[in-house]
């Protein structure tokens, strides 16, 4: 198969749409296809319109398309909302809806008695599985791997449930044969496309465990909450503690307290919760306590669109809290990057004794990415900056905030006999005692900022994807990565485009960005926000102004076609 296939399942919230979609995704992934899963849902428990879209390809696929090939419509609303998205030759699977054929020229209308078949399989709840069985047939696959996936997903509910689901799948699979729709996919040899499918939140949570995070303190907030769910479920197996606090203020404060006694600790939230944490962000900075803060952005300001995506918080992260202090901001572009970078985040926080903000968004947090060739041992845990009891006791005079060349001073941990000191939110002297002396104030500010030089040296540089000398250079950060890379692949025969992707955004990698942009023939900024925050940052830090800005702020991610269309405007 060369052509990519996009399948959308839509219906009311509570229909189990995401679970169904993921079963299909995992099946195809096991069969050797690459997949990307994207879900849309409103901030409701029941009712409202939910969709899950799966893009399937032989080659890499990292983004969602606007156009689809198969629409599984579990209700009429799904047809009405998504009929404009159908490619010619597309299939709609529905159950008994009165659709006017003249509205759907070039589209295969498949009226499949989902409920009837589900009931004959043993239960109306298997409706989705009937539909997926039919989809498997259209795709030209048999049900072997699909059945395996059903066992995997529902095995803990008992053999009866699995048998019922398998029957439902078979009924859907057989029923659709009479429609004689050509197979979309050539059956592959069955070698897996990779080892894992996971969201960036799952990858982040797993990376946190890998990094030795022993305390995660949080208050639930979409779309960051699933990190808390995952860690909560795994906490006993991996000897870490998840503590839910009364609010985000307490969450960050508690994490700081644990970090102060030597625990690798983190907190996580979305923009609104982060707003509450801002006060203590400065506390971590002033006391020089290592802290990892995960912020998964959603459409804002205020409550905004709670279950939709945006990249609106970058400048907020850079400037959050009163006063000036160094910090890291890391924004991975997909789940694999999230897995590695969150581990780096813990190492960096501890090495430099400061806050590290790990910036995700709804698109990353809740989309299903495939991960091939993940190496769990790639990032080593590096514990740095401590001082042992012997060293301490050999010292006449331990100074927690010693003025050092690189600004980093060794931490004695509460409990160590000879290290008693004040961890101080007041400006302080080298021992930690409060001071308002002008010279010490200046020295301590300089101490904290001295870390910047080494921070810059330790940060990986932004990656340039594609050839060096392209006609167009796209600049983006974080989650826009997938759509840009997929779009580039689709136009590469006729157009030369490269892509500068920023992940380690702060301190700002000005030298590298400036060099790439000044050598570029034409530059296009792509951001999922209203004001082009990275663009402004680039101008501030390099003096380079990007005039071509493609910005989107409707709560939706960039669909690949939109990027392709935009590229074509320039070359």
């Amino acid at each position: 198969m060369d052509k990519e296939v996009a399948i959308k399942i839509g219906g009311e919230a509570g229909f189990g749409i995401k679970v169904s979609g993921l079963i299909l995704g995992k099946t195809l992934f096991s069969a050797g296809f690459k997949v990307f899963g994207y879900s849309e849902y409103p901030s409701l428990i029941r009712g409202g319109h939910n969709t899950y879209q799966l893009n399937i390809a032989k080659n890499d696929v990292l983004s969602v398309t606007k156009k689809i090939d198969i629409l599984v419509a579990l209700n009429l609303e799904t047809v009405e909302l998504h009929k404009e998205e159908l490619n010619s030759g597309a299939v709609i699977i529905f159950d008994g809806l009165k659709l006017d054929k003249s509205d759907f020229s070039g589209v295969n209308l498949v009226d499949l008695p989902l409920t009837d078949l589900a009931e004959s399989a043993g239960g109306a709840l298997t409706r989705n599985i009937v539909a997926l069985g039919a989809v498997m047939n259209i795709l030209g696959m048999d049900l072997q791997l699909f059945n395996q996936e059903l066992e995997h997903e529902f095995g803990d509910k008992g053999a009866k449930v699995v048998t019922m689901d398998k029957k439902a799948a078979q009924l859907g699979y057989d029923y659709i044969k009479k429609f004689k729709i050509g197979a979309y996919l050539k059956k592959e040899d069955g070698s897996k496309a990779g080892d894992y499918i996971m969201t960036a939140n799952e990858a982040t949570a797993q990376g946190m465990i890998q990094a030795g995070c022993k305390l995660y303190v949080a208050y639930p907030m979409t779309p960051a909450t699933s990190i808390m769910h995952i860690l909560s479920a795994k906490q006993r197996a991996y000897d870490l503690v998840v503590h839910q606090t009364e609010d985000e203020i307490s969450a960050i404060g508690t994490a700081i307290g644990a970090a102060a006694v030597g625990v690798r600790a983190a907190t996580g939230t979305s923009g609104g919760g982060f707003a509450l944490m801002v006060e203590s962000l400065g506390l971590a900075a002033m006391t020089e306590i290592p802290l990892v803060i995960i912020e998964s952005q959603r459409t804002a300001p205020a409550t905004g669109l709670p279950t939709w995506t945006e990249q609106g918080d970058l400048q907020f992260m850079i400037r959050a809290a009163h006063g000036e202090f160094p910090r890291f901001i890391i924004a991975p572009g997909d789940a694999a990057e999230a897995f590695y970078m969150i581990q780096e985040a813990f190492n960096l926080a501890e090495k430099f004794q400061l806050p590290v903000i790990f910036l995700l968004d709804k698109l990353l947090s809740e989309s299903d990415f495939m991960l091939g060739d993940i190496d769990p041992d790639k990032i080593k845990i590096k514990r740095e900056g401590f001082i042992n009891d012997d060293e301490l006791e050999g010292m006449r005079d331990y100074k927690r905030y010693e003025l050092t060349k690189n600004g980093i001073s060794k931490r004695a941990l509460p409990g160590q006999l000879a290290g008693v000191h004040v961890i101080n939110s007041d400006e302080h002297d080298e021992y930690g005692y409060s001071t308002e002396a002008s010279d010490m104030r200046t020295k301590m500010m300089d101490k904290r900022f001295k870390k910047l030089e080494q921070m810059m040296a330790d940060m990986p540089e932004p990656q340039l994807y594609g050839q060096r000398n392209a006609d167009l250079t796209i600049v983006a950060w974080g989650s826009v990565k997938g759509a840009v890379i997929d779009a580039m692949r689709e136009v590469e025969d006729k157009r030369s485009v490269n892509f500068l992707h920023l992940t380690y955004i702060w301190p700002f990698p000005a030298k590298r960005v400036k060099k790439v942009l000044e050598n570029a023939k034409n530059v296009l900024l792509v951001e999922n926000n209203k004001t082009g925050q990275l663009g402004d940052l680039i101008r501030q830090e390099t003096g380079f102004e990007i005039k071509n800005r493609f910005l989107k702020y409707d709560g939706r991610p960039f669909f690949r076609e939109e990027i392709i269309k935009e590229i074509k405007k320039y070359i």
Partner: protein
Amino acid sequence: MAVASAAKFNTSISPTWCPGCGNYGIWAALKQALFELNLEPHQVLISYDIGCCGNGANFTRTYAFHSLHGRAIPPAVGAKLGNKNLAVIAVIGDGGAYGEGIQHLIHSARYNVDITVLVHNNQRFSLTTGQATATTPQKTVTLTTPFGEIKKPINPLLLSLDSGASFVARGFANDGKHLTELIKAAVNHKGFSHVDILQPCVSFNKENTNEWYQNVIYKLDSHKYKADDLIRAREKAEEFDKNGKMPIGIFYQAERQTYESQIPQLAGEPLYKKSLQGVNCLVKL
């Protein structure tokens, strides 16, 4: 190093509190209590609010976390989760405990984390020239209430009793011996302990003076008053509102499992010492 007195809890810095400030009495009682509990400076972490009492971070030789206004409790909870071997105390004023950070008091009482919260309650924001706090009596004139405070004050003991605190006491700054015993009992208590400490502010509270307190205070007689009954504790906590008398002592103490003891991952070595290596958690499809 080995000083056989409470003086080992002194730093080289002398207190900057006003002469006659109630903080001196509380400070002395705290140090004496730690000494009598056989604790060494490195075994204690005190998380301080800001303000007059928070300045104690510089004068008191233990590990200290000088936090933000209203935010002394969360780091104390984190420190206890991280290193259960530390004696963890939060030192807060009435502004930070019952105003700005009141949620942390309520919820850590509810969690029953094994920390001690000492509240220096002088009914004023004194470091900032004596504005009204959540415990300032009605009609009191301060810079922010020139026509008299309108709002009803909080009853701190009722608040923590109703929040589930397993140890609730009230002390008086200028009765050092009594207060020392209260602090010792609070630190020894397994679970969340709250000691509200009445404290004269010689600069900004001209109503609730040392003499005023001496007239209204009386000690709960441990032979007559048993601190094991929540309803009785509530009645005692309301006594001042009813008859103008103010009991001090332990109002309530109950055995309740601590939050930490119910988390199996916290058994054994303290959390900060647990091995970070050798984890491979990735789950294959």
